[in-house]
């Protein structure tokens, strides 16, 4: 199924990417070509083959519950774009009514 420009615009919204119109125009045919190429996996992946999510068999990893020092607030906040009252200052997260 070809990927239309509207689909790409929707993907950009889901991906939190505010793309300009010319970027969408450029990306749409590229994504369409890539998705057509990767769809080849459907040729061989028959039913009954278990999926692999990870190369190494994983089991839960536990450690002793011992206290270790963590980074202090000053260090953590030193790279923040904006700080207020020893906290990350962020833009509003709720809509204004």
């Amino acid at each position: 199924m070809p990927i239309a420009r509207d689909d790409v615009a929707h993907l950009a919204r889901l991906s939190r990417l505010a793309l300009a119109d010319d970027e969408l125009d450029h990306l749409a045919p590229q994504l369409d070509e890539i998705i057509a190429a990767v769809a080849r996996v459907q040729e061989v992946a028959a039913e009954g083959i278990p999926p692999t999510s990870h190369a190494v068999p994983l089991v839960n990893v536990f450690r002793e519950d011992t206290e270790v020092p963590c980074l202090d607030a000053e260090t953590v906040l030193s790279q923040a774009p904006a700080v207020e009252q020893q906290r990350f200052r962020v833009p509003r997260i709720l809509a204004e009514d």
Partner: protein
Amino acid sequence: MAELFRMTAAEIAAAVRGGGASAAEVTEAHLARIEQVDPQVRAFLHVAADRAREAARAVDQRRAAGEPLGPLAGVPLALKDVFTTKDMPTTCGSAILNGWLPPYDATITRRLREAGVVILGKTNMDEFAMGSSTENSAFGPSHNPWDLSRVPGGSSGGSSAAVAAYEAPLGVGTDTGGSIRQPGAVCGVVGVKPTYGGNSRYGVVAFASSLDTPGPLARTVLDAALLHEVMSGHDPCDATSIDAPVPPVVAAARHADVSGMTIGVVPEFTGEGFQPGVLARFTEAVELLESLGAKVTEVSCPHFTYALPAYYLIAPSEASSNLARFDGMRYGLRVGDDGTRSAEEVMALTRAQGFGAEVKRRIMLGTYALSSGYYDAYYGKAQQVRTLITRDFEAAFDRVDVLVSPTTPTTAFPLGERVDDPMAMYLADLCTIPSDLAGNAALSVPCGLSPDDGLPVGLQIMAPVLADDRMYRVGAAVEAALDTSRGHPLLNDAKGLA
């Protein structure tokens, strides 16, 4: 003694231990070399000259105090800018992290420091390790020391170029789809992807977590092995780190003998789409191994040709999730926070401005593959193909000790040639991806120059999970035989730098 910057890591370490050279002298020689050639090569994003001098002085003081020195003490190294360093910026080649100073060292950074390795600086890379040329770096591409108009490979192309240009005897990279072996091959140096889980990912900025594997780049197989042992080993900070002994890779690199070994040629990686000169050198390397006493046989791995499409679903899916953390809230770039915009609008503006084209493509591709309604048809199928590829490897390793193929279908391509043709760029990793999906070990060793363009060709040697030592044994045998017949190391023929 040879010029200090032309010495191997093993030679430097021996000289520092024995008093033939100080770590300080060695470091100055490499810093001078960087000053001389890096304006052309552009391997480094950040040179940490003062920190390097301090680290070297500390090694010299330990020696003067009679303390024992490790196998790489005093040896300079070029570190890919994906590893966090608390005293140097870490950008991942991205504008979104420009100037970021991490609050902690990656486990591998810490291990290198504790071993007395002198970190010269941070090397260029494709943004967030997505690419095969360094052209996706926000800070401009690096250049191949064999021909400055060509790519050094990627994504660890800054490290491979630094090693090939004698700016550092050792480099560290990360391999997710071939990002150590492919730049190693096209720069004429050794590049190693260890077994997944053998090297800690703690402090490695994540691209595709089930695939990302740190590993060494070096000018000799022995140097790569020495670095492999220093980097590797269990790390409780990485839940996927394997709690098992590091395979004996240094002993294997010193035991360059393939007699009695069985080597499988993968026919799926010798046909159409491969540069004739690459195939010519590959065929010669296989004949060489046979003449050295190995038994060579053909082993078909029918699902390897589906590795590339499976990878371009799995890696972007993981990336779309991992890169969600770059939201402009806690660190890195923030764009458009003018007091009127919401957090969501600021995030979308920040990511649109902070990420480059390839990263955007992959985030959107991954978002698509994971979307409800498409998940089963794409991501789910790709995970099944991953099983089929692992089974191909298991069946092959029942019959042979290692598998071999060319590392890359072509030699280094010209800068700009594939930059806006993603599918052509992706093909550079055709032969390297299967080992990332299956998690087994693989190494690229130079096997000569392509007769059609005079550029280096890499031989890829693939070994079973946690049998990394086998590929070092084979790689060392090829290297020794070729160096003997040529009469000098391959890199002496690199003419890109006057």
